[in-house]
């Protein structure tokens, strides 16, 4: 940033040609990637708090459907009059919970935070390719957050047609109150979000391709960077399609076009729409919607790869296979969207094709899981909180991924489609796994972000209660799904047949409350450690990647002197010298990437 452009520049700001940034420059309209990462993280966490709180209200309603709770009236106002939850607000809660968790927490909060923080630091760059675009990306995201949250204060309620907002329900205010102004705000929020995401993604791609330091070839990149890079590419390919779907929906709603609507009679009147198809919308939506799952998951897997290798004191097993799997998953993710639509009324032949492509994804996913396990094998595991969350991720990723084999099979999908089986599946494989990735990343890179350590014991408590709770919620949930319990039901008591599932629903809710309460340990630990945490040393986890060669105190440009050169990949943990007598650097079980190849070491076949 040029000095001349700074009207408030005071005297000492002119010394040595740069100035002390003002508060606004430093903390608000910052173009520094490290600050933007923190901004993303904190906004994402606040959105996560809101999203999880919504799910608590839903779990309360599902566990005790015919009872009233004052909390509904306090939080939902007229939609919780006399402590009774309104059925339409239940649908709104599930819609906004899904939207917030998927887009705002696990896309922006996860990818936005760690791509911004780690891409420049781990590839050895002074900042993102365009700091200004990066800042713009965050502020668009922030505006989008405000818009989506503000939709809760609209007269007829926020969007209520599920996070997939299928028309005609989402297009017709006559069909449900939330499809009025609430839905307009949803579309506005998502449009801004897509713009933000594209600016961010393009920046990540350009930065990774162009700003790598000397010696940092693509095959020496840490897997985190590979994951962020490929995630950004998937985002650029698929988010514009969501934007298109959103715009067409907006036209149907506001300008009388019929892209998605046809032959509708509602509230005593025939509407003029003719010739459109809701199935078209489903295709467009899921062309983003499915890759979105991997946009959420890949960064988490990238983060875990790095943390597991570091804390196992071992190289990640099958580095090249891991990259190949990321690429394969990315490619396949764009050709499987139809598995959300097996019973949508599309041609059954397409169902066969999508079954085939979908089950193929299990192969690279399996390779990743096996590689993680082999990385743990014969390691010297340093069980830091970040490591626990990473191991937890591998576990939930496997549990949740396996049930995908049932859902991805068009035949089997018929009877469990849109039941709680699906809810259990995607929460484990994508929700919980990605959240574990987020937590792992926070515990691991907190020292880099805030220069202080988080309290490990609070971290342990946080992990264990969360791990027990997450399985306690979602494992039994598969079974109520197999019983044919549909999702997005305000209550099940209208079907006496489901009466004997009520106990299981209570069990799930109790686990949910405990798990949510455990997150307060994290909140406390996070806030407390920012201000009072133990001061971090430069490389607390004894890690090889470049971010740990920067000073603890953040400086603009990351490295005070020259940018370090890279001589090796980032996984030389516990590598022995030629004689097999000691580590390459005697007494130190890691060799940072900026250390030249030593005389006593065998060079890896790169």
């Amino acid at each position, binding site marked *: 940033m040029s000095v001349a452009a700074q009207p408030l520049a005071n005297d000492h700001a002119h010394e040595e040609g740069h100035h002390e940034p003002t508060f606004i420059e430093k903390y608000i309209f910052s173009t520094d990637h490290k600050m933007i990462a923190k901004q993303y993280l904190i906004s994402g966490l606040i959105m996560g708090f809101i999203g999880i709180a919504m799910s608590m209200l839903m779990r309360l309603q599902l566990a005790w459907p015919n009872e009233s709770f004052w909390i509904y009236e306090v939080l939902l106002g007229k939609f919780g009059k006399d402590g009774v939850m309104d059925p339409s607000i239940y649908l709104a809660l599930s819609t906004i919970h899904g939207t917030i968790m998927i887009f705002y927490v696990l896309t922006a909060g996860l990818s936005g935070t760690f791509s911004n923080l780690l891409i420049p630091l781990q590839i050895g760059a002074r900042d993102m390719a365009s700091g200004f675009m990066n800042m713009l990306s965050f502020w668009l995201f922030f505006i989008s957050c405000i818009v989506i949250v503000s939709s809760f204060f609209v007269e007829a309620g926020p969007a209520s047609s599920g996070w997939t907002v299928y028309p005609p329900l989402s297009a017709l205010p006559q069909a449900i109150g939330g499809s009025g102004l609430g839905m307009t705000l949803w579309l506005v929020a998502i449009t801004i979000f897509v713009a933000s995401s594209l600016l961010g993604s393009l920046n990540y791609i350009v930065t990774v391709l162009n700003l790598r330091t000397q010696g940092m070839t693509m095959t020496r990149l840490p897997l985190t960077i590979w994951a962020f890079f490929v995630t950004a590419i998937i985002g650029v390919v698929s988010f514009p399609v969501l934007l298109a779907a959103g715009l067409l929906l907006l036209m149907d709603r506001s300008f009388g076009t019929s892209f998605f609507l046809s032959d509708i009679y509602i509230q005593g009147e025939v509407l003029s729409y003719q010739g459109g198809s809701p199935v078209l919308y489903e295709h467009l939506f899921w062309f983003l919607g499915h890759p979105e799952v991997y946009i959420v998951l890949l960064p988490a897997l990238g983060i875990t790869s790095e943390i597991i290798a570091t804390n196992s004191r*071992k190289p990640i097993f099958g580095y090249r296979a891991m990259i190949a799997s990321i690429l394969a998953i990315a490619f396949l993710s764009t050709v499987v969207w139809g598995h959300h639509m097996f019973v949508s009324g599309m041609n059954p032949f397409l169902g066969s094709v999508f079954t085939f492509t979908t089950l193929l994804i299990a192969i690279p996913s399996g390779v990743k899981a096996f590689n993680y396990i082999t990385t743990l094998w014969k390691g010297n595991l340093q069980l830091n909180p970040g490591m626990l969350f990473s191991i937890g991720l591998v576990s939930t990723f496997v549990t949740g991924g396996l049930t995908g084999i049932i859902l991805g099979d068009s035949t089997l999908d018929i009877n469990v489609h849109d039941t709680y089986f699906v809810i259990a599946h995607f929460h484990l494989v994508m929700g919980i796994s990605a959240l574990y990735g987020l937590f792992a990343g926070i515990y691991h890179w907190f020292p880099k972000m805030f220069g202080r350590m988080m309290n490990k014991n609070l971290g342990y408590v946080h992990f264990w209660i969360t791990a027990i709770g997450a399985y306690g919620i979602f494992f039994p949930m598969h079974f109520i799904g197999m019983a044919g319990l*549909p999702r997005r039901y305000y209550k099940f008591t209208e079907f006496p047949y489901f009466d004997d599932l009520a106990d299981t629903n209570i069990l799930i809710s109790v686990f949910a409350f405990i798990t949510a309460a455990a997150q307060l340990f994290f909140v406390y630990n996070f806030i407390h450690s920012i201000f009072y945490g133990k001061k971090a040393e430069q490389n607390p986890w004894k890690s090889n990647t470049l971010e740990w060669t920067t000073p603890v105190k953040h400086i603009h440009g990351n490295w005070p002197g020259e940018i370090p050169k890279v001589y090796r990949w980032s996984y030389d943990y516990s590598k022995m010298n030629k004689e097999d007598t000691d580590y390459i650097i005697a007494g130190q079980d890691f060799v940072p990437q900026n250390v030249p190849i030593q005389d006593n070491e065998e060079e890896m076949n790169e």
Partner: protein
Amino acid sequence: MTALLIIIVAALLGITIWQISKIFKLSQPIESDDSQIANNEDNQKQGKLFLVFTVFLYGLMIYSFWSLSRFYAPGASSHAEDYDQLFFISLGLIMFVQVIIQFLIHWFAYKYRGKKGQKALFYADNDKLEFIWTIIPVITLAALIIYGLFSWSEIMNVEETDDTLVVEIYAYQFDWRARYSGADGTLGEANVRFIEGVNQLGLNESDPYAQDDIITSELHLPVDRPVLFKFRSQDVLHSAYFPFFRSQMNVVPGMTTQFGFTPTTTSKEIRNSDYMVEKVRNINEIRKNNDNLDEDEKSYEFEYYLLCNKICGSNHYNMQMKIVVETEEEYQKWISEQQTFKELTAQN
């Protein structure tokens, strides 16, 4: 069950309090090591906790299968058996993998927990190993895909024969209607633009095929006769979900979707099956103790139902239709008692 819940809750709360008290103890600055990096002691303790967690996880899985798998609804259509077989093969397979993999993850986390002086093995690659765990899933999945696709095409490609009963299922916020084709065996033309007064489904009154159509609010099906459903919606997306018949199809405004199955168990038969007798007894026990219910709601008798399984508005949770599967004679008797479309319009 409730007692079990209370025990679990109490146990978890106990663990929570125990852990919290430990944190307070541990967060006291008496320790010399306050680096907040896992030390030898932490590694020992957390490694062992992984073992404890494994016990919890396997306990939870066993509990779920032991006491919750009875919720799996019995099948009552000709393809249900095939469906269930594929389902259980897949489930068996994934649980087999799950049990092994989860064990490895948690066992390794315990076994290789960091110890002072322990050296990790520098082990970066093994092509043979990676080939093995690529090829095994490939083969297994190929088998599953092929099996699945055969079932899929069998279920989805319904051939209409003389014997096939064609029934239209009509969805609107928030109820269902069924339309039978009547004596001529052909459903009359219909469009939302014809909806007026009693002509709730928008039949074309000038279409001769429409005259003998029969519109009902209950779905009656003769046993062992193939039924082909044509689905139509008048307002938003709905999904016609028949859990006992392992069938589901979205109902899409602006187009007709279809699905076919052959019911094989009459309502009477399934009501008297061991599974259902036990289940209904259990449900009635629960309902008896439910003070929110009126006296006449307390006794429940099983009926098949169709429910909406695509979010469709505020009453989505209560969009159901009773289904009766009966013998051909009973069905003929019932259908002959129903009003035709002509009679319906003439009346008004």
